[in-house]
Structures are given as C-alpha cells and as structure tokens.
C-alpha cells in the first residue's frame, strides 16, 4: 500500500446524467480514500478541465478519470483518444465507466489505451462495491506517477 494521500485524491467524473453523477458521488463516499469528485458533463469540458483551460483555469491535477462513453459534444472515445495522445495527460489512469457491455466498445476502449473498462452494475449495491474496489485499487494499491 502507498502512503495515505495527504491531500484528497482528485477524481474527474465525465458524465452527463445528473442521476448517474449522484449515484457515483454516493458510492465514492463509501470508499476509504479521501477524494474530491469533480464533475464535467461533456467531452470538450473534460479536456478543458484536464488542461486547465477556459472556465477550468487553475483546476487541480487529476489523479483518476472516470469516463462515460456516451457524452454530448465529444464522445468518450474521442476524449480517451485525446488524453492518451497528449504527453501532458497520457499518464492519468482513465477508467471507462459505462452502461455498455458491448464487445466492440470494450475492445475499442482498450485499443485506445483505456486503463480499465467497467460496465456499471445495475444493482446499486454492486455499483458501490465496484467503485469502492476501483478506488481502492487505483488510489491505494497501484503506484501512480508524481506521488
């Protein structure tokens, strides 16, 4: 295990459905890692946030991205591709978190260098469990750059 983060871990949730945002927020509160959940509702805003541009000037460095695939303006796939092609962002782990369990979506995401592809469990309890484990693995078990 790594040292417990002294400052809250910065998670960026890219999700356009407020209901899903609410569920994800609730689920992450059950985790053991102090985190700060930042939310953007579309793909372009996600990239501006990560780059600290526009309305997101001065945004804190993100430790983990939770990315939905179906997004307005710029799709999750495009956002993923841009992050993984940008030397300033490519080190940030991106977890695709989506309703889809489609083989094509899964393969395409990994080909674009997603760090993990997670299908949102339908049952809330399972969703919480999935997020807690994701958070535990990515924020406690693995060693990320810049820690």
């Amino acid at each position, binding site marked *: 295990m790594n040292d417990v983060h002294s400052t809250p871990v910065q998670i960026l949730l890219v999700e356009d459905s407020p*209901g*899903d945002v*609410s*569920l994800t927020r*609730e689920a992450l509160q059950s985790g053991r890692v102090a985190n700060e959940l930042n939310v953007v509702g579309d793909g372009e805003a996600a990239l501006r946030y990560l780059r600290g541009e526009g309305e997101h000037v001065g945004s804190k460095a993100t430790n983990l991205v939770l990315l939905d695939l179906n997004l307005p303006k710029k799709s999750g796939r495009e956002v993923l591709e841009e992050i993984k092609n940008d030397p300033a962002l490519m080190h940030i782990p991106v977890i695709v978190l989506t309703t889809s369990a489609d083989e094509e979506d899964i393969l395409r995401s990994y080909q674009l260098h997603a760090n993990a592809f997670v299908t949102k469990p*339908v049952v*809330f*309890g399972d*969703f919480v469990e999935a997020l807690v484990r994701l958070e535990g693995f990515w924020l406690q078990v693995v060693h990320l750059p810049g820690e």
Partner: protein
Amino acid sequence: MTDLSSQLMVAVDDGGIGLERFALSQSVLDYAPVGMVITSADDLVIWANLAMDDFLGISRAQLVTSSFLAFVHVDDRAVLSQDAGRLLADQEIADVREFRWLCRDGRRRWGSIRTSIATADSGEPLLYGEPPRPCVIRQILDITERKAAEGELARVLAELRKRNVELERSNEELTQFAYVASHDLSEPLRVIAGHVELLARRYEGQLDENADRYIAFAVDGCTRMRVLIEDLLSYSRAGREAQFQPVDVTEVMEQVRRNLGPALGESGGSLIVDGDLPTLTADRTQLVQVFTNLVANSLKYRCPDLAPAVHASALHADDSWRIEIADNGVGIPKEHRERIFRIFQRLHGRDIPGTGIGLAICRKIVERHQGTIEVGESPYGGTAFTIVLSDREALDNE
C-alpha cells in the same frame, strides 16, 4: 383448294409422291396438335394444316397466299425471317425458337417454332415458284398457357422474394428494437433503482410507516423491471447465430441434469430418460437451454404432494424426431396452451416467481431450428411438451 396448293401437289407429284399418299399424310398432319405451314422462299403460305386455323383464327383458305411473317409479332419477325434465309442458303435445321404472334381475335399467343427446309421423299428439296426455289416448313407448338404459367410463377416468386426481404428486415428491426429498448431502458432504471435503494438505506425508519412501505414497493418494482429487461434481452438474443452440428440429445439431458442439480435436489425430483434419445443437427447450447427451461418448468409447476418426475423420450416419425418431455405436475388447461408460448404470458400469480419468458425462448429457438413445439397432456398426469425436429443431416445454417 386454291391454285397454289394444286400447284404444290403438282410439285409433290413431280417429286414422285402419289396424290393418294399425300392426301393421307395431309389428314394425318391436319389433326396433329402442332401447327404446320409450308411457305415459299419469299414467305407466301402454300399450305397449312388444320391446327393453323385455330392458332391464327382465320381459315386456311384465307391463309394460303398470305405472308406468314405478317402474323408474327413485329419484334420476332426479323429473327424468323433470318432463320428461313439461313436455311435457304446452307440448308441446316434452325434452332427451336420462342416467338409471339397475333391471333385474328386480338389475343397474343406464344409459340415454339422450328423452321426447316421442306423435302420430298427423295430427300431433295421441294421446289416451288418461278423460278423454282426450295420451300420452308414452319412447325409451331402453342405454348401460350405455359408462358402464362411461367409468367405467373415468376410474378409469384418475385412477390415472395420481396415479402421475404421485407420480413427479414422487419425481423431484424424487431431484434434490434428489443435489444436497444432493453439496453436503453436499463440506464434510467439504474438511476431510479439506485436512488430508491439509497432512500431505503439512509431513511428507513426515519420517515413514517407509509413512506417505508412506498419505498419497499418502489424497490420491488425496480427489481421486477430489471428482471423483465434482462428477460427481454435474453429473448431478443435467443436463437441468434446458431452453430449447427450433430448433438447427442442424451448428452444434452445430462447437461440439463447438471444445470438443474440444485432444483432437482431441493424438490426431490427426478429426470428420467426413457429409451434412446437421438443425435440431431442443432445448436448444442440452444438445445440445452430449451430442455433446461422445460424441465425447470416441470419442477416449478409440480403437484404439491408429489415428488416431481420428468420423463424424456423420443420417437422417430416421417424424417423427424418427436422428443417428449412429460411430467406429473399440475398440467396446463387446454384453453391456455397456445398463450403460454407468448412472451411475458403467465398462468400463475406472484406465488410462483417468473416473468413468462422461458417458453417463449423455447419456441423461438425451436423455430429457428425449423421445428415445432406443442403442449399437451402427459401420460403421467401433468404436462407434456413435444418438440419435433427434422433429422436431416445438415440444416441450413442461418
């Protein structure tokens, strides 16, 4: 007889055939069901048999001295004229052709025609006219009815093909629709169910009794909706992309026994294979699903005071296998026997869980195997499902 035909007889006579003999052969020719015309090299009718009267709708007397090609459809004249020309040049027999002609009563007729050079008994060409030139025989079979039937067949075939394409498309759309609907319904349902769940966790006992009950109903509704959506998805997927190969049904039953091990144990039930079961060309996984669903149904709808016994047997009849799954359960009343195969149709209330998808899936799979499934009374007192599947070696892989 016109002058021309008496001239022909003279010509025939000149060729060494007696008049008597020609008269005999003319009566034979007259009543043949084939139209026959002899024309001069420049297409004037010299002689015709009786069948031509009927074919063309005019009397033979009118026909003689007319142009034969004048009766032929304008688009077919050139080729028939060329046939005669080529024959006159090299005296080979022309191909049988199809052509159209116009009957005097206005009906368009179809014929099959053979053109040849008229020869006398000597084998020499029959000569006619001044200067004498070989004559041409046209023999015509009336194929109007056959052409009409062919046309009708082609029309029906084209119509069938069109409907088939439409059916395939609407089927494809339906499959897509069910898949997309169930997929897209899951998303808002997850949000609803998640928040209802949160309400239940965080606020149970903090509101009044009614609130707790409402939340419980909402949780229950979400659960049932989720099961329905999952079932709709399995139904839309059922029977797709079947891999046809030889499948031993005995082995399938063993798999069913393993799949239902807990249910069999819990109900004290037994799955009995009576006699030999065949090997069929089928998709193994799908066949296992069908029989698992049927046997599971038998265990579920059992008589309360009887250990469930499910018998599997097979009969060979008319190039197909009839596989029967018969139980000693509660049975299904006659009036409900068709309904039970429809999606989400149930005969029992909430006391027996289920959404009514199992038999719909069974029917879909069996039909994808070009088979049938029926339900009737079991010799053991309950329900008997009969599946009829062809024992053909290779079913078309869809």
